């Protein structure tokens, strides 16, 4: 899956053509941090590690930090800023243009039965349109099935800020094996019951019946992120926090 040694690239550096995956049928897919200059030049635009996946004929740059830039199909946690006639304005990160969330982009929403959200409330949504010339658009419903699939308003709970790279690791399908995040499993094993939603824009929403658990989960996540904790250290941290709480 990954190359033998971590290959760090800087913006504008040339990539060894032998690293670029080729397939007789599947087109090459470029992920974040890479730019294609026609006809055949592929150049990194950020500093990070070049990751090549030969099976999926895709390549991208793995990096952390910076500001969230919306891209299509990202799951994000947004805060309602205000409501207009047909849509809500939603803030994804501070000082960036608001995204729009149509009033009818909720599960089984009609003109008469739609969620009434007031400024300050949170939504878990998918980015349905991201384009540099337009403000991003969101939806809380799957366009093909009409089901919410876990998206929608987030009631109660609390939001914690994490780095973009950590949010990405939490959202990985195999966050334990590939992302090396075990803090959530460890918290669950210690008998804590909580609900969690991770936004690609570096936000984590946590809810539980007890406020103590919410704070503990949030602290565990933030500490794991800020102190770059490994798997073992994460387990140790959870043990310590749980002991302190009881």
């Amino acid at each position, binding site marked *: 899956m*990954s190359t033998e040694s*971590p290959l*760090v690239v*800087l*913006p*504008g*550096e040339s990539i060894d053509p032998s690293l670029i995956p080729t397939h007789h049928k599947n087109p090459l897919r470029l992920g974040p*941090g890479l*730019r294609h200059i026609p006809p055949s030049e592929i*150049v990194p*635009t*950020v*500093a*990070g*590690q070049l990751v090549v996946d030969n099976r999926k004929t895709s390549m991208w740059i*793995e*990096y*952390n*930090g*910076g*500001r969230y*830039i919306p891209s299509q199909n990202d799951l994000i946690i947004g805060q309602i800023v205000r409501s207009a006639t047909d849509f809500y304005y939603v803030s994804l990160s501070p*000082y*960036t*243009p608001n995204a729009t969330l149509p009033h009818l982009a909720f599960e089984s929403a009609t003109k008469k039965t739609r969620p009434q959200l007031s400024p300050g409330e949170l939504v878990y949504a998918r980015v349905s349109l991201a384009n*540099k*010339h337009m403000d991003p658009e969101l939806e809380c419903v799957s366009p093909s099935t009409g089901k919410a699939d876990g998206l929608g308003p987030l009631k109660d709970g609390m939001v914690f800020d994490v780095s973009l*790279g950590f949010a990405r*690791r939490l959202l990985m399908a195999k966050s334990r094996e590939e*992302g*090396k*995040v075990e803090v959530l499993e460890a918290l669950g094993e210690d008998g804590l019951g909580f609900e969690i939603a991770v936004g690609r824009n570096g936000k984590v929403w946590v809810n539980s019946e007890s406020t103590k658990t919410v704070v503990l989960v949030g602290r565990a996540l933030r500490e794991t992120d800020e102190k*770059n904790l*490994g798997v073992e250290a994460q387990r140790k941290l959870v043990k310590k926090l749980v002991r302190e709480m009881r």
Partner: protein
Amino acid sequence: MTIAAPEASLNALPRADGSARYSYAGYTVTASVNGPIEAQRRDEHAYEAHVDVIVRPAAGVGGTRERHLESILQSSLAQIILVKNFPRSVIQIVLQIESTPENAYVNTKLVQASLNLPIIPALFQTAVLALLSATVPMKATATSTVVAVVLEDGSKKIVADPSPKDIGEATSLHALAFTSHDELLLSESEGDFTVKEWDDVYERAQEICCQSAPKQAGVDMMLDDDASGPDMRSFLRSALETKVASDLYWK
């Protein structure tokens, strides 16, 4: 005089999107980068991002000299940032000068009206590091240096990274920056000089800014290592490698 190697630390400021602190040759500069963020109406451009550079002096408030430095940096940084990717937005770069080399020989307060070329490389390098730390998409990286032409025993000598004393005695001063594709990005000169002198200065600056690590491994490079000054490009690379390694510790 030998100068300590350049030093940099990235992501020093917790609240900014990206930040860097850089010190070299007596200059220490901290930069923060935020962006792309929403532009105010007057800065808004329909097709590209506005690069907003703010230079803050070590003491007091900024004046004409800082505005001039800002305009020089703004135009060269906008060349390497992919501004077309973020229309109607702002990329804000704040550069705080923390310390400048003390000059025991000349009273620096008296040269208020003159250009402040020697600080350009420090400001420029910090800005590039902070932009990389904020993962702002860029076309290329860049390195910068300042070179003086000093009259010594009747002959002109080219001095890279001149000391404040050299600057005081220099007949001309030149600040240059090169992209990682070896293209000249910025050239600001001051004083009396001939075309031949400028060519020599250009060659010397290119040597400092553009030599890459593999070339330096050669034996002949090692011999005149003292004369050629630091290798800015491999410095930039090693600073970034450290940052990427700590970001991706879980890999």
